[in-house]
């Protein structure tokens, strides 16, 4: 393990219970280092999405400690957590969540909307991000004019336009055909090569096979954590 300064996500004894006694996470310990490429795998209901919510500061643990990029989530207010997400964490969702009727460029520049960056700069950086994901020719298109793979690339561009330290992807290929899914995974790997920490949640072994480290979950527990040699 590298030093603590190289750790971007630390979960210590993290549990999450929902009203009604449903336990989604139990006593999870996990460290993710900067620059890692991690797959969180497990069947549905195993607590993967709750894990993502914890790492993304969208939810707070019922017990235990969550430290993201050096900030203890328990010590930050809702506003401060929002600001942390705006600058340090990018999200990619299974269903893209693009604004309909808004150009691809503006969809991506909204990734910077809550960081206080001015519109002109947001657009410039969005254009650069779109070129990075290979959509430089689609700037003025609307989401409904794009293929599924292009939409997910747009969503990825939006997630990384603010150059977050941590990119969280929840079933990023779940709504795509295998070929588009391949392309999206390659893009995530490329981003990882540029230094972004990437965490992918998936239940598809084919997707996980792209990733070096596999954290397996079952019934809210981490039941396996292995790093495989990549070809």
């Amino acid at each position, binding site marked *: 393990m590298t030093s603590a300064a190289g750790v971007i996500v630390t979960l210590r004894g993290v549990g999450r219970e929902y009203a009604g006694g449903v336990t989604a996470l139990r006593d999870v310990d996990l460290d993710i280092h900067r620059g890692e490429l991690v797959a969180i795998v497990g069947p549905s209901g195993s607590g993967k999405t709750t894990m993502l919510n914890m790492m993304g500061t969208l939810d707070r643990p019922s017990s235990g400690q969550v430290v993201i990029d*050096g*900030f203890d989530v328990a010590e930050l207010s*809702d*506003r*401060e957590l929002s600001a942390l997400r*705006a600058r340090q964490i990018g999200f990619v969702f299974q269903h893209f969540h693009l604004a309909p*009727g808004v150009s691809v460029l503006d969809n991506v520049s909204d990734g910077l*909307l*809550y960081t206080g960056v001015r*519109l002109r700069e947001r657009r410039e950086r969005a254009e650069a991000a779109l070129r990075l994901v290979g959509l430089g020719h689609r700037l003025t298109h609307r989401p409904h004019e794009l293929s599924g793979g292009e939409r997910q690339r747009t969503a990825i561009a939006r997630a990384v336009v603010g150059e977050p330290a941590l990119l969280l992807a929840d079933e990023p290929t779940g709504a795509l055909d295998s070929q588009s899914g391949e392309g999206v995974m390659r893009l995530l790997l490329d981003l990882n090569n540029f230094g972004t920490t990437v965490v992918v949640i998936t239940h598809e072994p084919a997707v996980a096979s792209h990733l070096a480290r596999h954290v397996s979950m079952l019934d809210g527990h981490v039941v396996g954590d292995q790093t495989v040699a990549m070809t």
Partner: protein
Amino acid sequence: MASSPRPGRLNPRDLVRLGGYGLRARPLRVVLSALGIAIGIAAMAAVVGISASGRASLDRLLDSLGTNLLTAGPGQTLFGESATLPNESVAMVRRMGQVESVTAIGLLPEARVYRTDKIPAPQSGGIGTYAVRTDLLDTVGGKVTSGTWLNDATGHYPAVVLGARTAQVLGLRTVSRDVQIWLGGRWFTVAGILDPVPLAPELDLGALIGWPAAQRYLGFDGNITTLYLRANPDAVQTARGLLARTVNPAQPNEVDVSRPSDALAAQAAAETTFTGLLLGLGAVALLVGGIGVANTMVISVLERRAEIGLRRSLGATRGHIRIQFLTESLLLSVFGGSTGILLGSGVTAVYATVRGWPTVVPAWVIAGGIAAALIIGAVAGLYPAVRAARLAPTEALAAA
């Protein structure tokens, strides 16, 4: 540990863009709910605009007619009989310092008016024959629409000038050289036709003949039934106070003094009562429109949970979400309000044009309409915006 992260601020331009996204995504619903506001604002703007235009038209009319015309009639004696004004009253009134001009008419109750001598006697059409002086027209501010007014010559001969309604009743539109009517049992040549006289509407249904002609051909006794006088505009009230005593020093209580422009103004005042009622109806329409906007916003928040979740994940604070939905509601209402003002102004313009009034939409109506729309937007949007902001990010994302 580094200093805690601080959220960025949304500038107004970003807010308007954000609000616009939400509206553009559902254009039909936006138009329909804005329509509710628009109808309310339009109703109020039109009511105020039409009544303001009507008042402007009255003001213009009074400006051109003058408000310094006073009339004095003989009224009734203590015993309920019709009194008459003494013949010398014209001369006495003329001597009053405040009077600019004075004239008199006398009704000839027996002289009935018919288009020809073949018309059965009962069908007189209610037209009154008046002996008039040649300065009547200037004093009451009347105009001849066709033909000529009586002059010193025609005033001595059987010539008649018809009021606007009289001409209509008799079926005469213009005066040709030899049109005659059957008046008081003999033929009178029609010399002219008057425009309606707003300050002396009794003349509209009158047949006006010269004072000397009335005496010579119809046995007129010279009794005055109405005095018209123009007072000095600064001394109208003084003149009004002195008039009865001057006209009939013996029985001033018998004299009816009135100021015709007051009657016109009173009529306008009566119409403002209706304005209040219609404004109330407009306010109800506006309230219903506001409820429509609130409804649209509540549904919008429910439908857009995924978007709210996404925005929270992009780093939006609760405050950012709240202000976004509030802005959307405000934009929606202001869109409705502006449309309403345009509609209301349009209705006012059409109505005023049809009535021949000047079109007046007071500036405060425009400002008030926008302000009302903003208030409605704020009130209608507040609760949905607060609900949107309270939504937990995970819950919002799970809704997708």
